């Protein structure tokens, strides 16, 4: 029984905009092919570094972010928009608010992707994971996102369906939270058109970055996809979601809890212990709403499991939801400190994220595409058999990808931590631990190849379907107009009135969602800023010299952080291998922090003065010369390219603006210091027979590497 006291009998005739859905569907197919191909290329480069073709633009450190950005923001991003533009119109019984805004959104987003594809191989990067794009592109992202938000909220405002279905709640949470995350994590001081430094440093930068990074997973890869699940799974199964009440609990608890969990990426780091513990507690609590969503998805198929046998769409969706359940159980497990001590920095994390990316995001996207494209083009799928092939080869691909990565991750952790009975590291040479897992990396590559083969089969299948069909851009529809000032019958002491305050009021709903989302982030970040004892001062820690700063920017440009951490955790196995564990005060001038999240190579925090300049020169030119069997790529261009010192002044000025205590007027004289230090290094190399001059980039990089971790010697830690 409805609580409406009157009903509207007049039918509005209108049409749905299918053109924008088609555009985004095409973009999913194109960028999916590109992003996954780059993934295969970098997976190959870990086995055979020469697959970079000896080009700086195709080397692992530069194109690994291209892979992650392409898959997350191009493939998944376009899939989100495709799914939302189709479902939002139908759930609200309204055409999108503005066709023009839809087009601006589409072409703006594609422009961002193209700019990313150009700038990342050029080494124009902030180095912050999943937020690598430089400040002009960041501004463009914000503008395009606002266009999307206006279009979405405009559509909600002119809707003909009074209720906002739960899928739309997830869309709203996505739109507002991604905006907040992107803006706060991207705050930076430009030091040129393609260079900026984040306003945060060291520990604070790490906290903000992983607050963003974790919630990029939460609110870009999860909440919008949950919204899509709540719409497309019932459509494909032809039955309503199992429990709408459970979906409400799922939504509110998920968005409340997710935002707190970021610090679980920084366990055993220099981040204050209380923040780490808070991240762990909320990560564990996340299992409940996550599994609530998974159970709700799977139980939607109750009594209809026979359909899964025949429907390839449902096959993809069932595996996707199951992968979501696996990943959201594994994530909290990894946030336990004892598990994290083993898994962090290893391939285990790569396996974990790919269960989510290949299983949850990939398979749900494929399921939606197989459901959507035949409907958009009014024709049956070209080949059901080929779609089934895609399902099975993709499924096997995930297994072949994840299993060796779990094996590899545990192998790495065990070897890194293994001591002999005499009490020394059993595998002191890091390379030994990497070569041990080479076979696992090969199997992973095969898994990726299988998955990609399935994707190509889907492309062929969908293109043939599209060619056989006829597309109708404006799909006619009709629905009763939404009555304004409708009277509601009071139900059960006003409970329904409270319900309406949220569920039918987009503005109030959005404000409440923002408040819920912000609580966690603020409680974690504000104390870290305001409590001085969080980051004790270390008197001997000084700002980088001009040469070291330039060298650091080369380190960032080449994406060294993608393979090397700069964070020694307080474990005996790490202090024995690398040296003194990391202190928060060591990073106070690190804009950005470069802790990394993966050790394909060893940690570099204490590498300063560990080897002579000559070792670094030879190592960068050809790692196998000083480290036989090394899987690190060559960087020969560093000894050829001349360091651009015209940027020094703007870089020092930007650092001073951020509070780095360089002397007054230093930006004007910095290049003098730079050249002096560079000549000392060059002279040292020349004495040992190396034909190199002081203006080459390699000299700056050596200057930076030789500085790393050396400030901590003869330290005085003070809270004042």
């Amino acid at each position, binding site marked *: 029984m409805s609580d409406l006291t009157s009903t509207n009998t007049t039918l509005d005739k209108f049409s749905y905009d299918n053109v924008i859905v088609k555009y985004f569907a095409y973009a999913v197919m194109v960028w999916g092919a590109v992003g996954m191909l780059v993934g295969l290329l970098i997976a190959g480069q870990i086995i055979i570094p020469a697959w970079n073709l000896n080009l700086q633009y195709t080397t692992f450190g530069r194109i690994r972010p291209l892979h992650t950005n392409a898959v997350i923001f191009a493939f998944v991003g376009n899939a989100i928009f495709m799914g939302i533009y189709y479902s939002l119109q139908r759930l609200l019984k309204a055409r999108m608010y503005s066709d023009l805004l839809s087009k601006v959104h589409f072409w703006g987003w594609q422009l961002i992707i193209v700019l990313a594809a150009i700038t990342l191989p050029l080494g124009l990067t902030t180095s912050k994971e999943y937020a690598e794009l430089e400040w002009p592109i960041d501004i463009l992202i914000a503008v395009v996102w606002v266009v999307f938000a206006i279009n979405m909220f405009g559509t909600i405002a002119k809707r003909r369906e009074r*209720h906002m279905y739960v899928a739309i709640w997830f869309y709203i949470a996505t739109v507002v939270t991604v905006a907040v995350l992107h803006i706060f994590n991207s705050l930076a001081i430009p030091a040129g058109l393609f260079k900026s430094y984040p306003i945060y440093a060291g520990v604070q930068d790490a906290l903000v970055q992983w607050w963003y990074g974790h919630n990029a997973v939460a609110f870009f890869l999860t909440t919008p996809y949950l919204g899509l699940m709540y719409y497309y799974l019932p459509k494909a199964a032809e039955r309503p979601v199992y429990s709408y009440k459970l979906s409400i609990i799922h939504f509110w608890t998920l968005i409340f809890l997710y935002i707190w969990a970021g610090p679980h990426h920084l366990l055993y780091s220099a981040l204050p212990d209380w923040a780490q513990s808070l991240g762990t*507690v909320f990560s564990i609590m996340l299992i409940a709403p996550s599994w609530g969503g998974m159970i709700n998805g799977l139980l939607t198929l109750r009594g209809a499991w026979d359909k899964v046998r025949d429907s390839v769409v449902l096959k993809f969706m069932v595996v996707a939801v199951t992968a979501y359940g696996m990943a959201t159980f594994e994530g909290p497990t990894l946030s336990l400190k004892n598990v994290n001590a083993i898994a962090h920095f290893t391939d285990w994390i790569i396996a974990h994220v790919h269960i989510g990316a290949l299983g949850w995001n990939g398979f749900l996207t494929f399921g939606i595409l197989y459901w959507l494209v035949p409907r958009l083009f009014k024709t049956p799928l070209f080949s059901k058999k080929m779609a089934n092939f895609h399902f099975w080869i993709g499924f096997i691909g995930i297994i072949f990808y994840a299993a060796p990565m779990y094996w590899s991750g545990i192998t790495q952790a065990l070897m890194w931590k293994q001591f002999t009975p005499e009490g020394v590291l059993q595998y002191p040479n890091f390379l030994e631990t990497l070569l041990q897992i080479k076979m696992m990396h090969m199997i992973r590559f095969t898994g990726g190849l299988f998955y990609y083969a399935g994707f190509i089969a889907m492309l062929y299948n969908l293109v043939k379907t599209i060619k056989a069909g006829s597309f109708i851009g404006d799909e006619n529809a009709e629905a009763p107009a939404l009555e304004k000032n409708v009277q509601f019958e009071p139900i*059960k002491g006003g409970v329904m009135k409270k319900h309406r305050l949220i569920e039918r009021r987009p503005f109030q709903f959005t404000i409440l969602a923002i408040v819920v989302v912000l609580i966690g982030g603020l*409680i974690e970040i504000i104390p870290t800023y*305001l*409590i001085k004892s969080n980051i004790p001062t270390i008197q001997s820690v000084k700002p980088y010299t001009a040469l070291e700063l330039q060298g650091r920017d080369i380190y960032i440009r080449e994406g060294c952080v993608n393979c090397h951490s700069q964070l020694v955790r307080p474990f005996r196995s790490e202090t024995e291998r690398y040296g003194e564990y990391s202190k928060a005060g060591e990073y106070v001038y690190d804009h950005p922090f470069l802790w990394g999240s993966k050790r394909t190579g060893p940690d570099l925090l204490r590498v300063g003065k560990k080897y002579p300049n000559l070792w670094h020169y030879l190592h960068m030119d050809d790692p196998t010369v000083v480290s036989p069997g090394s899987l690190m790529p060559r960087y020969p261009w560093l000894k050829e390219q001349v360091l651009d010192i015209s940027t020094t002044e703007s870089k020092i000025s930007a650092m001073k603006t951020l509070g780095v205590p360089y002397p007054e007027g230093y930006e004007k004289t910095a290049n003098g210091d730079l050249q002096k230090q560079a000549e000392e290094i060059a002279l040292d190399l020349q004495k040992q027979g190396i034909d190199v001059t002081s203006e080459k980039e390699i000299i700056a990089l050596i200057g930076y590497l030789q500085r790393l971790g050396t400030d901590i010697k003869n330290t005085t830690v003070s809270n004042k």
Partner: protein
Amino acid sequence: MFSKFFVSEEWLGIFAIATMLLFILAFIIIMVWVVKLNKDQIEEQRNLPLKD
């Protein structure tokens, strides 16, 4: 007024407890809200994707 909360680590213990209480409170409110929801209306909303 609130600045005193942020001057030392001693106050940090409050955050963990306050956070937990905040979540429990929010969770109880949501549960009560959901339990009291009208069944017919829930059924109507549940079926929305199938009506387009």
